[in-house]
């Protein structure tokens, strides 16, 4: 009978379980960072040494010039501009001109957005302008396939899905292996004028 009394409450004291879990939690909180793998994606041109040197004359109307100096001041198509967000509608008008206005591009295929900075331009300004240029193109692509800008970016993130690939090719106007609506962004080598 004495044995029975000892077996009364065979419980493990689990009140410290929460403390143990807290300790682990704090450890993970301190040692980790939330992954930030998002940003502006870009494809650089090939190695300059292997490229053939060719002088191609591009008509003035097909180039949309954006320049930024070392004081982060904008010059768009030769005119000073203070509001960065104004670039987006200007690019859309320029690319979708299709030859109507003789000062803007012939076709979306020929349109080139040229972006030149100074060596003293801050990265913040560069990102802001690049964001506007890419945003203009994403907006146009999205409008061509009838989705929102955000959906378009999600589609282009994952091209392994055949449906996404189909929409992606449609938006960029892929025809016979050639893109009819390319994102022609030319980032020129920075100038060394303003230190």
């Amino acid at each position: 009978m004495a044995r029975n009394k000892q077996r009364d409450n065979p419980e493990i004291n689990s009140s410290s379980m929460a403390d143990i879990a807290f300790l682990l939690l704090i450890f993970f909180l301190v040692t980790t960072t939330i992954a930030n793998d998002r940003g502006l994606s870009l494809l650089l041109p090939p190695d300059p040494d292997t490229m053939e040197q060719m002088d191609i004359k591009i008509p003035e109307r097909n180039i949309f010039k954006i320049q930024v100096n070392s004081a982060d001041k904008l010059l768009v198509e030769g005119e000073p501009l203070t509001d960065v967000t104004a670039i987006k509608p200007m690019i859309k008008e320029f690319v979708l001109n299709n030859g109507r206005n003789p000062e803007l591009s012939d076709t979306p295929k020929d349109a080139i957005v040229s972006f030149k900075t100074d060596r003293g331009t801050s990265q913040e300004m560069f990102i802001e302008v690049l964001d506007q240029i890419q945003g203009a193109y994403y907006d146009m692509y999205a409008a061509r396939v009838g989705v929102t800008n955000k959906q378009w970016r999600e589609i282009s993130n994952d091209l392994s899905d055949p449906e996404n690939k189909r929409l992606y090719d449609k938006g960029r106007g892929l025809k016979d292996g050639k893109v009819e609506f390319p994102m022609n962004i030319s980032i020129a080598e920075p100038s060394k004028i303003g230190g």
Partner: protein
Amino acid sequence: MSKFKKKANTKQEIPTSALPDIIFMLLFFFMVTTVLREVTINVKQRIPDATQLRKLQRKSLVSYLYIGEPKKTSQWGSEPRIQANDVFIEPKDVVLWVNQEKDKLDEVERDQITIAMKVDKEAKRGLVSDVEFQLRKANARKLLYTTLQEMEE
């Protein structure tokens, strides 16, 4: 009075037996959503904002470069520097570094290497474009400027 007395007799404890479960749930959340820090970042990182963000597909193909003003200005000066892994490198060393990173990948995937550049807001374009030029030479043309999501109106 008798009514109140009866109530006072009831147990006033909050059951805490589910507390460990709640904490474990939090723990698992943090374990899943985070990655272990691999390098100590020795440069200032004030990441710029942008709206048109794209997400990286495969993390195994990504290598990181950090550019910014060194945190220890007394030791390294206040000029922005490039950090790869745990050391500061010069722009001309980027080709070597890219090749080392490519060697870590599978042979078939080497051309798909993506360089994620975490650049401080105040860093100048001159340095960043020097790195870009070296990346072109090293044939690592996929580039990502890491940015934060800006609130869209």
